[in-house]
Protein backbone atom coordinates (compact mmCIF):
# COMPACT_ATOMS: atom_id res chain seq x y z
CA UNK A 1 0.00 0.00 0.00
CA UNK A 2 1.32 3.40 -1.01
CA UNK A 3 1.79 5.86 1.86
CA UNK A 4 0.60 9.36 0.94
CA UNK A 5 3.12 12.12 1.63
CA UNK A 6 1.68 15.58 2.25
CA UNK A 7 3.45 18.91 2.27
CA UNK A 8 2.55 21.20 5.11
CA UNK A 9 4.52 24.42 5.45
CA UNK A 10 8.12 23.41 5.15
CA UNK A 11 7.43 19.92 6.43
CA UNK A 12 6.55 16.58 4.98
CA UNK A 13 3.93 14.38 6.54
CA UNK A 14 3.82 10.66 5.84
CA UNK A 15 0.46 9.35 7.01
CA UNK A 16 0.57 5.58 7.22
CA UNK A 17 -2.95 4.24 6.62
CA UNK A 18 -2.71 0.54 7.38
CA UNK A 19 -0.32 -2.27 8.15
CA UNK A 20 2.64 -2.08 5.81
CA UNK A 21 4.69 -4.80 4.22
CA UNK A 22 8.44 -4.51 4.38
CA UNK A 23 8.51 -3.49 0.74
CA UNK A 24 6.02 -0.68 1.44
CA UNK A 25 8.29 0.59 4.21
CA UNK A 26 11.33 0.59 1.95
CA UNK A 27 9.35 2.45 -0.72
CA UNK A 28 8.30 5.02 1.87
CA UNK A 29 11.90 5.47 2.91
CA UNK A 30 13.03 6.09 -0.66
CA UNK A 31 10.19 8.50 -1.34
CA UNK A 32 10.83 10.53 1.81
CA UNK A 33 14.55 10.81 1.25
CA UNK A 34 13.93 11.91 -2.31
CA UNK A 35 11.27 14.50 -1.40
CA UNK A 36 13.23 16.02 1.48
CA UNK A 37 15.92 16.81 -1.08
CA UNK A 38 13.50 18.02 -3.72
CA UNK A 39 11.50 20.35 -1.44
CA UNK A 40 14.35 21.23 0.94
CA UNK A 41 12.12 20.29 3.83
CA UNK A 42 13.29 20.96 7.35
CA UNK A 43 11.12 18.43 9.05
CA UNK A 44 9.42 15.12 8.42
CA UNK A 45 6.58 13.62 10.41
CA UNK A 46 5.83 9.94 10.16
CA UNK A 47 2.40 9.26 11.57
CA UNK A 48 2.16 5.64 12.69
CA UNK A 49 -1.24 5.88 14.44
CA UNK A 50 -2.62 3.18 12.15
CA UNK A 51 0.10 0.65 12.95
CA UNK A 52 -1.04 -1.98 15.44
CA UNK A 53 2.32 -3.73 15.51
CA UNK A 54 5.85 -2.37 15.43
CA UNK A 55 8.32 -5.20 15.21
CA UNK A 56 12.06 -5.09 15.04
CA UNK A 57 12.16 -4.80 11.29
CA UNK A 58 9.75 -1.84 11.23
CA UNK A 59 11.69 -0.15 14.02
CA UNK A 60 15.00 -0.67 12.30
CA UNK A 61 13.60 0.73 9.06
CA UNK A 62 12.15 3.78 10.82
CA UNK A 63 15.48 4.36 12.51
CA UNK A 64 17.44 4.18 9.29
CA UNK A 65 14.84 6.37 7.61
CA UNK A 66 15.34 9.05 10.26
CA UNK A 67 19.06 8.72 9.88
CA UNK A 68 19.00 9.20 6.12
CA UNK A 69 16.60 12.11 6.43
CA UNK A 70 18.99 13.70 8.92
CA UNK A 71 21.84 13.32 6.44
CA UNK A 72 19.69 15.33 4.05
CA UNK A 73 19.37 18.08 6.62
CA UNK A 74 15.90 17.46 8.06
CA UNK A 75 14.48 16.34 11.42
CA UNK A 76 12.18 13.37 11.81
CA UNK A 77 9.36 13.10 14.32
CA UNK A 78 7.49 9.85 14.74
CA UNK A 79 4.02 10.38 16.10
CA UNK A 80 0.97 8.37 17.07
CA UNK A 81 2.53 5.26 18.58
CA UNK A 82 -0.33 3.51 20.41
CA UNK A 83 0.06 2.70 24.11
CA UNK A 84 -0.19 -1.08 23.55
CA UNK A 85 2.31 -0.89 20.73
CA UNK A 86 4.73 1.10 22.88
CA UNK A 87 4.33 -1.46 25.64
CA UNK A 88 5.11 -4.38 23.34
CA UNK A 89 8.03 -2.52 21.76
CA UNK A 90 9.84 -1.86 25.00
CA UNK A 91 9.37 -5.43 26.14
CA UNK A 92 10.82 -6.64 22.90
CA UNK A 93 13.75 -4.32 23.57
CA UNK A 94 13.04 -1.82 20.82
CA UNK A 95 13.73 1.87 21.28
CA UNK A 96 13.73 4.86 19.00
CA UNK A 97 16.80 6.39 20.54
CA UNK A 98 17.81 9.65 18.96
CA UNK A 99 14.50 10.13 17.17
CA UNK A 100 11.91 12.62 18.37
CA UNK A 101 8.45 11.34 19.20
CA UNK A 102 5.11 13.04 19.66
CA UNK A 103 1.66 12.06 20.82
CA UNK A 104 -0.08 12.84 17.54
CA UNK A 105 0.15 14.85 14.35
CA UNK A 106 -0.75 18.11 16.03
CA UNK A 107 1.94 17.67 18.66
CA UNK A 108 4.42 16.56 16.05
CA UNK A 109 3.86 19.70 14.00
CA UNK A 110 4.13 21.88 17.10
CA UNK A 111 7.40 20.21 17.99
CA UNK A 112 8.85 20.69 14.51
CA UNK A 113 7.77 24.33 14.42
CA UNK A 114 9.46 25.00 17.77
CA UNK A 115 12.62 23.26 16.62
CA UNK A 116 12.71 25.16 13.35
CA UNK A 117 12.23 28.52 15.10
CA UNK A 118 14.95 27.65 17.60
CA UNK A 119 17.40 26.64 14.91
CA UNK A 120 16.63 29.83 12.96
CA UNK A 121 17.42 31.83 16.07
CA UNK A 122 20.64 30.01 16.67
CA UNK A 123 21.84 30.69 13.10
Amino acid sequence: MEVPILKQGGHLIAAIQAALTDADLIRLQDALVEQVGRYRSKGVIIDVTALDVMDSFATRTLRSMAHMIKLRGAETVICGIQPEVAFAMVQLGLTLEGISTALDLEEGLALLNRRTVNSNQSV
Partner: protein
Amino acid sequence: MEGETRVHIGSEIDIIEARERGRTIGKLVGFHPVDQTIIATAISEIARNIIFFAKQGTMSFEVIAEGNRRGILIVAKDSGPGIADISMAMQDGYSTSRGLGLGLPGVRRLMDEFQVISIVGKGTTVTMKKWVAHYD
Protein backbone atom coordinates in the same frame (compact mmCIF):
# COMPACT_ATOMS: atom_id res chain seq x y z
CA MET B 1 -12.98 -22.57 19.16
CA GLU B 2 -11.16 -25.88 19.51
CA GLY B 3 -8.70 -27.16 16.92
CA GLU B 4 -5.95 -25.37 15.15
CA THR B 5 -5.69 -23.06 12.19
CA ARG B 6 -2.69 -22.77 9.97
CA VAL B 7 -1.23 -19.97 7.89
CA HIS B 8 1.27 -20.55 5.13
CA ILE B 9 4.15 -18.11 5.42
CA GLY B 10 5.57 -17.49 1.97
CA SER B 11 5.56 -13.75 1.47
CA GLU B 12 5.49 -10.53 3.44
CA ILE B 13 1.72 -10.30 3.10
CA ASP B 14 1.48 -13.57 5.03
CA ILE B 15 3.24 -11.95 8.00
CA ILE B 16 0.35 -9.49 8.30
CA GLU B 17 -2.16 -12.30 7.76
CA ALA B 18 -0.52 -14.38 10.51
CA ARG B 19 -0.48 -11.64 13.10
CA GLU B 20 -4.08 -10.74 12.38
CA ARG B 21 -5.02 -14.39 12.84
CA GLY B 22 -3.15 -14.42 16.15
CA ARG B 23 -4.84 -11.25 17.30
CA THR B 24 -8.29 -12.59 16.45
CA ILE B 25 -7.72 -15.84 18.30
CA GLY B 26 -6.19 -13.90 21.19
CA LYS B 27 -9.33 -11.80 21.41
CA LEU B 28 -11.56 -14.89 21.37
CA VAL B 29 -9.57 -16.52 24.15
CA GLY B 30 -10.00 -13.41 26.26
CA PHE B 31 -6.63 -11.70 26.11
CA HIS B 32 -6.39 -8.08 27.19
CA PRO B 33 -5.76 -5.69 24.25
CA VAL B 34 -2.19 -5.16 25.39
CA ASP B 35 -1.60 -8.91 25.28
CA GLN B 36 -3.25 -9.16 21.87
CA THR B 37 -0.69 -6.66 20.63
CA ILE B 38 2.11 -8.55 22.35
CA ILE B 39 1.02 -11.79 20.66
CA ALA B 40 0.77 -10.08 17.27
CA THR B 41 4.23 -8.61 17.71
CA ALA B 42 5.75 -11.98 18.61
CA ILE B 43 4.09 -13.56 15.57
CA SER B 44 5.44 -10.79 13.37
CA GLU B 45 9.01 -11.44 14.53
CA ILE B 46 8.88 -15.19 14.09
CA ALA B 47 7.07 -15.05 10.74
CA ARG B 48 9.56 -12.54 9.47
CA ASN B 49 12.45 -14.78 10.47
CA ILE B 50 10.86 -17.51 8.36
CA ILE B 51 10.68 -15.23 5.31
CA PHE B 52 14.19 -13.89 5.91
CA PHE B 53 16.07 -17.04 6.67
CA ALA B 54 14.00 -19.93 5.35
CA LYS B 55 11.94 -18.29 2.58
CA GLN B 56 8.80 -20.16 3.60
CA GLY B 57 7.13 -22.20 6.29
CA THR B 58 3.91 -22.52 8.26
CA MET B 59 2.49 -21.08 11.41
CA SER B 60 -0.28 -22.82 13.32
CA PHE B 61 -2.49 -21.45 16.06
CA GLU B 62 -4.31 -23.33 18.73
CA VAL B 63 -6.43 -22.47 21.75
CA ILE B 64 -5.14 -24.33 24.78
CA ALA B 65 -6.45 -24.97 28.28
CA GLU B 66 -4.71 -26.34 31.34
CA GLY B 67 -6.48 -26.56 34.66
CA ASN B 68 -8.48 -23.35 34.84
CA ARG B 69 -6.25 -21.26 32.61
CA ARG B 70 -6.55 -20.67 28.93
CA GLY B 71 -4.12 -19.52 26.35
CA ILE B 72 -2.79 -19.65 22.85
CA LEU B 73 -0.21 -22.00 21.35
CA ILE B 74 1.65 -20.93 18.25
CA VAL B 75 3.97 -23.25 16.36
CA ALA B 76 6.14 -21.96 13.51
CA LYS B 77 7.87 -24.49 11.29
CA ASP B 78 10.22 -24.14 8.37
CA SER B 79 12.59 -26.33 6.40
CA GLY B 80 15.23 -23.66 5.98
CA PRO B 81 18.93 -23.66 6.83
CA GLY B 82 18.40 -24.03 10.59
CA ILE B 83 20.27 -22.22 13.35
CA ALA B 84 23.77 -23.42 14.15
CA ASP B 85 24.05 -21.96 17.63
CA ILE B 86 20.67 -21.43 19.25
CA SER B 87 21.99 -20.01 22.51
CA MET B 88 23.90 -17.42 20.49
CA ALA B 89 20.80 -16.60 18.42
CA MET B 90 18.84 -16.08 21.62
CA GLN B 91 21.14 -13.31 22.76
CA ASP B 92 20.17 -9.67 22.41
CA GLY B 93 21.93 -8.17 19.43
CA TYR B 94 23.02 -11.35 17.68
CA SER B 95 22.10 -11.26 14.01
CA THR B 96 23.44 -12.80 10.84
CA SER B 97 21.34 -10.44 8.75
CA ARG B 98 22.49 -7.05 10.04
CA GLY B 99 19.20 -6.87 11.90
CA LEU B 100 18.87 -5.64 15.45
CA GLY B 101 19.09 -9.24 16.64
CA LEU B 102 16.17 -8.65 18.97
CA GLY B 103 13.64 -10.99 17.37
CA LEU B 104 14.23 -14.25 19.20
CA PRO B 105 15.32 -12.86 22.60
CA GLY B 106 12.56 -10.26 22.45
CA VAL B 107 9.88 -12.84 21.71
CA ARG B 108 11.11 -14.89 24.63
CA ARG B 109 10.40 -11.86 26.84
CA LEU B 110 6.99 -11.28 25.28
CA MET B 111 5.65 -14.82 25.63
CA ASP B 112 5.19 -17.04 28.69
CA GLU B 113 6.77 -20.11 27.15
CA PHE B 114 9.19 -20.17 24.28
CA GLN B 115 11.21 -22.92 22.66
CA VAL B 116 13.38 -23.13 19.56
CA ILE B 117 14.35 -26.45 18.05
CA SER B 118 16.58 -26.31 15.02
CA ILE B 119 18.67 -28.70 12.98
CA VAL B 120 21.19 -27.25 10.58
CA GLY B 121 20.20 -28.09 7.03
CA LYS B 122 16.81 -29.40 8.11
CA GLY B 123 14.88 -26.49 9.52
CA THR B 124 13.59 -24.68 12.57
CA THR B 125 10.55 -25.04 14.82
CA VAL B 126 9.57 -22.28 17.19
CA THR B 127 6.93 -23.09 19.81
CA MET B 128 5.43 -20.38 21.97
CA LYS B 129 2.59 -20.05 24.44
CA LYS B 130 0.89 -17.26 26.25
CA TRP B 131 -1.66 -17.63 29.04
CA VAL B 132 -4.48 -15.23 29.78
CA ALA B 133 -3.39 -13.17 32.77
CA HIS B 134 -5.74 -13.04 35.73
CA TYR B 135 -5.98 -9.73 37.43
CA ASP B 136 -7.72 -10.71 40.61
